[in-house]
């Protein structure tokens, strides 16, 4: 077993795939600098920098994918997808249905997301619910290095458009680039197991749409993705001391959602709490409730999500993003 940091694992899996498949190309703003290790191994034809023209290079990636390439398009932040959402919403997601299923768009959109380092509400959003709302898009949110590498490989093998989200708080590289900038004077609440962990010697694709039970529990199911999984695990430890046994389900994929894993666990615990760093309304948390209701299950339900624009000030940000205290309170209210 090797041990790797979060982004290091993604790049390592990507390198393994690129060595095996010459159709894979990378592109995005500053990619030659940010993915320099891939640039010097795979060359500038396959690792390309772009202007600040998200609409153009995402749209181009869609058609490049339709004509033989397997592009990995990289963005600085998921927030910036707002500039070019057409490429995903009206192009990538529509080609397959519009062509009567005859044409597909194998494409990976790799985007850092989420907050916890005080960068303000235009740079710390999660937005996976917004993306998963669109039929035809697969939306993945890994929470550990092993899952990150395995899901990147799965995304590349998927055959359709996949949005691969990379929580910045887990990413050693993004936190250094955007957060500390080399400073040793700033502290972040980084989940250790999300930041670094053991990874397989050779990457294998993980199944897409398969949740993973990170912790068994009898009294309540806490479902989450990304950093939220680690906050939930921490809360579960606290709750354990109080005699509450909480299961923590890492959904890993927002779309498709592992409905049976959610229902199976909720059927046992009778309680569901969704911890979602994305916005509360019309998103993952509501979707999980719908899944359970549609399955005919009755349960107590609650959610801990981001309800407002994310404040810049660190102390306000901490309160707005799901934290351990809020999770514990929500669990108590469901007992």
């Amino acid at each position, binding site marked *: 077993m090797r041990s790797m940091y979060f982004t290091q694992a993604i790049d390592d899996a990507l390198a393994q795939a690129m060595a095996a498949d010459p159709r894979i190309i990378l592109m995005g703003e500053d990619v030659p*600098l940010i993915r320099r290790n891939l640039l*010097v191994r795979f060359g500038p034809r*396959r690792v390309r920098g772009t*202007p*600040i023209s998200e*609409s153009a290079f995402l749209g181009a990636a869609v058609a490049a994918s339709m004509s033989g390439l397997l592009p990995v398009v990289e963005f600085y932040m998921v927030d910036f997808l707002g500039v070019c959402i057409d490429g995903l919403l009206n192009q990538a997601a529509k080609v397959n249905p519009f062509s009567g299923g005859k044409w597909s768009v194998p494409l990976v959109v790799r985007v850092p997301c989420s907050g916890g380092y*005080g960068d303000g509400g235009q740079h710390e959003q999660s937005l996976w619910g917004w993306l998963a709302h669109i039929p035809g898009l697969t939306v993945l949110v890994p929470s550990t290095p092993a899952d990150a590498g395995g899901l990147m490989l799965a995304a590349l093998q998927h055959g359709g458009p996949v949005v691969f989200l990379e929580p910045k708080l887990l990413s050693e590289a993004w936190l250094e680039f955007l957060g500390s*900038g080399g400073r040793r*004077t700033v502290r972040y609440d980084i989940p250790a197991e999300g930041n670094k962990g053991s990874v397989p010697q050779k990457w294998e694709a993980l199944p897409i749409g398969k949740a993973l039970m990170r912790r068994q529990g009898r009294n309540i199911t806490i479902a989450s993705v990304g950093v939220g999984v680690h906050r939930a695990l921490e809360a579960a430890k606290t709750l354990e001391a109080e005699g509450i046994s909480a299961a923590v389900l890492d959904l890993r994929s927002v779309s498709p959602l592992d409905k049976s894993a959610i229902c199976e666990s909720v059927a046992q615990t009778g309680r569901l709490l969704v911890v979602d760093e994305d916005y509360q309304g019309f998103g993952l948390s509501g979707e999980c409730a719908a899944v359970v209701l549609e399955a005919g299950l009755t349960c107590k339900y609650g959610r801990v999500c981001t309800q407002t624009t994310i404040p810049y000030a660190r102390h306000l940000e901490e309160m707005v993003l799901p934290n351990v205290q809020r999770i514990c309170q929500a669990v108590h209210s469901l007992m």
Partner: protein
Amino acid sequence: MRFDLWSSYSRMLKSRLLEEAIARLWQDGLISGEMHLGTGEEAIIAGIVPQLVEGDAMALDHRGTSALLLRGVDPVLILHELLGRPDGLCGGMGGHMHLFSKEYLAASSGIVGAVGPTATGFAMSAQVLHTQAITVAFFGEGALNQGMMMEALNLAAVWKLPILFVCKDDSWSITTSSSSVSGGDPLSRARSLGIQAVDVDGRQVSDVWQAAQTSIQRLRAGEGPLFLHVRCVHLEGHFLGYQLIRMVRHPLRELPRVVIPLTTSFLHPGGAAFNERLAGVKIILGAVLDTLRDPRRDISNDPLYCTRLVLQPDARRLQELEDQAKQEIGQVVEVALAGAAR
């Protein structure tokens, strides 16, 4: 307002000192996230912003601190905002990339190119309401590759909107050399849309002032949008802690972290042929060399240095002015840091 080099220098210096104080607070970890300073573009801001009057609007990018300061926003409020305090300009909600002042009709955005549509809307209001007010849009040359920026230029042209488009060209798009990702040039892009565009030396505050003065008169007369292409340097690069600058400034500390994985990857079996790999290495070396040779390292490109040269003969007055500016900004920082730090 008439141009005065002494007052202009004073404004530029106060802006520089404030931003240097911000850099220290950022280094000390009191300011979180990214920090994009406008150090190096002071002559542009000081050459334009003081000429605005009540009702005029500003569409600002992610380096709006200096423009707000020189427009008249209380610097203590700005610092409180950057420190994330509830008594900050935006209640600690915005931070430096998202500074807003309703009072001065100034709106910032951290989304590159967003100033285009924002300026268009501000100017539309002025046009429809017949206020004779104008809007200044500040953006970099990298933003000219963003669709919405080009769309806004076109809209402003066809609607003859009173916008002064100010392209602050430091030749870097985030951390990529702009020439490597841009076709044509900013002036001809603006001109191709029928917008009159001129080049201005961003080191000389008097040049910027002159160009802005003429432009503003024409905008108020309803002649339609104008475009200033102003070259400048950003002394700290895209943002504080920018990797390439760190590498050049502290090679012993920074290089091993970069070079070791780079070499391992370069030599890794599986991948491109040697020539392609070498081409990749050349790109990285090119970026490092560009950073080493960057005009920001040449002090003669610092607008404060250029202005100071002219004022130097009157050494006593200069000393007094500088002492006063330092004292003023020193007090601002002291007041901002005092009181109920959270």
